[in-house]
Structures are given as structure tokens and as C-alpha cells.
């Protein structure tokens, strides 16, 4: 069974037709990369899936359940968690409070503590900074915090929006490595990226969005070799 099936999704923002019949699937256990230029509709796709924007047509099915018009908190409860663009760490709350917020729906205090500790074990840098305000962390640390915060909720599918944005190449590599490790533990990942090279390296499959619909789709290795992708997103021909 597919983890996520998006079928014929349409989204209008005021007068703008941001998604035009977008269709894609993410299989359970996969890392799927979503590539495309600025304004192609990548972020809108994620927002429509996580319930932040209302699609005007089409369906979103998560683990066999229609969540097209569900409220954001119901979608989080179902195990689909969205890490937004720009990390969106709660800047004046501590690292620890940020993580606790990720587990807002975990009512059992002992369980919440266990999950937060698990994130600290996975990301020791956060443990060192647990009493620091989120806004004082570096960009890379904030990204780790945003992902760690999502992990506390216990996701089955993680939507990641531009996790490499504005990070140094070395930090990008460690973020991608983190995503790979999370995926290895059984979490499905839908990864939106402008950094196509980094994304296709860890993805199993990929899609290219243009103008609100999927223009291309296929295994990551194939996409990485497709001349159209190479031209548009990978910076010209490769040797």
C-alpha cells in the first residue's frame, strides 16, 4: 500500500492557480524527492497535504485514509508530519520546549520524556543546547531541531520542505545523512528540495513539478541522468 497518494490536486490562492491537477504517490518506506523551480508548487503541495491550505479539487489519501479536508492536528495525529520551509523553530522558546511541542499530542508524560530523550540521543548537539532559546541556534542546528521536533510526534510520513536551504555544503551533507538514518528506521519521507543533487543522492524516486503539475517522475538514478533534469536542476551537463 502506498503511504501517500495525491490525485488530481488543485489549489487556488486568491487569483493564483498554484496546483493544477497534481498527482503523485509515495510508497511506504521510500524517500521521494520533489524537485522544481521557485513557484512551481512544491511548498503548496506540502501545505495542502498537511492541511494548512484547502485544495479546491482532488484527493489526498494517507495510509488508505482520505485526509483531504482533515484539520492539521488530525493529520499530525494520524502520523503525517510537516517540517515547514525555513525551519520555523519557536525562537524564544528553549530547545527543550520546542521538542516538547513536537509531542503536543503525546498525553503520557513519561512517553513524551522518552521520545525527547531519543531525539537527544540521535542529535547530541541539541542535548547540549537544551536550555538555550531556539532562535540562538545556528541554521544547521535549527534544521536539526525542526526535524527532531517532528520526530517527537512519532511520524510514519515526514514532509520536509527545503531542509538544505541556506546551509553550508558540509551541513547539508549531515542533514541529508540524518534524513537517510530516519528513513532507515522505517519513516517514509517526502523531500522537497531545490538542491536536486543532494536530494537525488538519498531519494529512491523523484518527481519534477512544473507549473503546478508533475512534469516528470521516476527512479532517482534515472532522473539524475535525465538530460532535462540535468539541464534545469543539476547545473548543466555532467561528465
Amino acid at each position, binding site marked *: 500500500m502506498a503511504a501517500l497518494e495525491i490525485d488530481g490536486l488543485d489549489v487556488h490562492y486568491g487569483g493564483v492557480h498554484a496546483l493544477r491537477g497534481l498527482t503523485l504517490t509515495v510508497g511506504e518506506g521510500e524517500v521521494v524527492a520533489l524537485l522544481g523551480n521557485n513557484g512551481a508548487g512544491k511548498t503548496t503541495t506540502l501545505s495542502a497535504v498537511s492541511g494548512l491550505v484547502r485544495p479546491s479539487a482532488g484527493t489526498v489519501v494517507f495510509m488508505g485514509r482520505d485526509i483531504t479536508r482533515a484539520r492539521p492536528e488530525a493529520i499530525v495525529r494520524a502520523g503525517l508530519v510537516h517540517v515547514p520551509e525555513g525551519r520555523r523553530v519557536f525562537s*524564544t522558546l528553549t530547545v527543550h520546549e520546542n521538542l516538547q511541542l513536537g509531542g503536543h*499530542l503525546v498525553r503520557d508524560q513519561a512517553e513524551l520524556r522518552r521520545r525527547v530523550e531519543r531525539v537527544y540521543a540521535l542529535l547530541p548537539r541539541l542535548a547540549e543546547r537544551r536550555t538555550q532559546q531556539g*532562535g540562538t541556534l545556528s*541554521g544547521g542546528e535549527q534544521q536539526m531541531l525542526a526535524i527532531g521536533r517532528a520526530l517527537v510526534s512519532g511520524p510514519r510520513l515526514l514532509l520536509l520542505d527545503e531542509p538544505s536551504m541556506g546551509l553550508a555544503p558540509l551541513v547539508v551533507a549531515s542533514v541529508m545523512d540524518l534524513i537517510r538514518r530516519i528513513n532507515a528506521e522505517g519513516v517514509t519521507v517526502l523531500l522537497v528540495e531545490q538542491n536536486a543533487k543532494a536530494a537525488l543522492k538519498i531519494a529512491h524516486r523523484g518527481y519534477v513539478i512544473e507549473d503546478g503539475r508533475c512534469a516528470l517522475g521516476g527512479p532517482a538514478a534515472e532522473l539524475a541522468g535525465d538530460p532535462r533534469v540535468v539541464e534545469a536542476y543539476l547545473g548543466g551537463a555532467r561528465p
Partner: protein
Amino acid sequence: MSQLIWNGLFVGSFYALVALGYTMVYGVMKLLNFAHGDLYMLGAFTGFAVLGAAGGVPPGMALPALLGVLVVTMAVTGLAGVALERVAYRPLRAAPRLSLLITAVGASFALEYGMRAVAGAEPRVYPVRLGGSAAEVLGARITVQQIALVVVAVLLMTGLNLLVTRTREGRAMRAIALDPRTSALMGINVDAVISRTFFLGSALAGAAGVMAGAYYGKIDFLMGFLIGLKAFTAAVIGGIGNIPGTMLGGLLLGLLESFGTWWLGGQWRDVFAFGVLILFLTVRPTGLLGERVTERV
């Protein structure tokens, strides 16, 4: 001197209670709820009605009766606040900030003149008066009732502060204050938390209304107007959106008024208070404890 300080702290604790609702609502919605002072008025009238329905209070039972009335009134004004948010503010959440502000002024008038239609324009005399014997403490005349009211106010404020800083609910409120959209992605039901914030803020205003009614002895449908502005001033002094700051702002405003009245005369009291408001808005708009957000992008 100590009398002035005591009077200032006493009045200031009322201001602080009302200002807290202002600051909480501003915190989660960035809305200046100008109808907040009228929830204080509604509280005073609700307390009045409950006391009337109970058919008088036996002498010597004024304080316990008042505490009971306080609880009922807080529930009523709390729900009124929730209804106000649901009807007047929620539909405008995505609208420009100015529309919300104008709606808040409209809600304020609706509550004031709605109350006039129901209860009439003449001031009502509160059935319970807290006068009682005074004691000399460090040269100030203090009544037991005053102390009781201050203790209730302090307990309510402490409870609120613990709720906001220590609990899951408070964490959700602080998260929404910073970023409502991302809060929704944490699984927080943003609408529900905003509703509960209105409940708490309005309940505190209602409590202050009953206490003021019992203390000053007279209530009328416009009593919320001035205290609403004073509470706003207190919130600005302390740093609007900041809870400990707001408590401090309330007490400071009480003290400033108390001393200002003594130096300049009673007729200058409000001039003095709003002069301070203007001073703060120009010189230090974030207030004494207002946070300057540090953010790295």
C-alpha cells in the same frame, strides 16, 4: 507614604488582573481587545445579579459569599469572552489587523449599550460592601477585606503564570503567540487554544469586576471603559504580551496614580496615567519587560 504605597498596590492589583486578559489575548492573536474592559463591567453586573438572586447576604458572611460569587461570575464572563471571540473575532482572523481593531471597538459598544438596555443607565449599588475594620500596618490603614482581595488577585495571577510557563496548555499558547501556522503543524488545535485563552482572560476580568463592585460599592454600564484603557496602559508599561511584565505594569500604574494624585490632585489622576502611556509608547513601546525577539534566519 506607606498609605500611598498600599493604595497604589491595591488599585494596581485590579489593573493587573484586567491587564492580564489584554496581554494574553494580544499574545495569542495580536489583537487589542478593546471590549476587554466591558467584560470587567459584565463581571460586575453578573456578580450583582447573582447576589440579588441569592437574596442578600447575612452579615459577617460577606467575604465567603463574595468568593462563591466570584467563581460563578468568572465562569459566566469566561464563556462570554469565548462567545465574543467566536462571533466577532474568529471570522476575521485572516482579515487585516485594522478590521479586527474596529470590530473590537464595536464589540465594546455592543456590550456597553447592551448592558444599558438590560440593566438601565442608572448606577446600581452593590449589595455587598467590603468596609470593615481597619488595622494599622506600618502607618497605613489596611482593611482585612482589602488584604483578602489582594490575596485573591495574587493567587489568580500566580496560577495563571504557572499555567503559562509550566503546562502543556501554556506551552501551546506561547507557541501560537510566536507562530500560529507552525503551531498547527505540531498538532495544536489553534482555534481551541485561542478559545481557552479568551476564557481565562475574560474570567480574570470578571473576577476583577466583582471585586471592584464590592469594593467601590457602585457599578454602571460604562465602568469598563476607563479601566479598559488603564489596563491597556498597564500592559504597555510592562510589555504587552508578556505576563510577568503585565503584572508589574499593573502594580506600577497603581503606584504612579497613587503618588500622582497626591502630588497633583485627584483631578489629574487620569491625565497622569495616560501621560505615562504616551511616554511609554514613544520612548519604549516594548515596555519594561517586553522581549525583543532575537531570530536568526
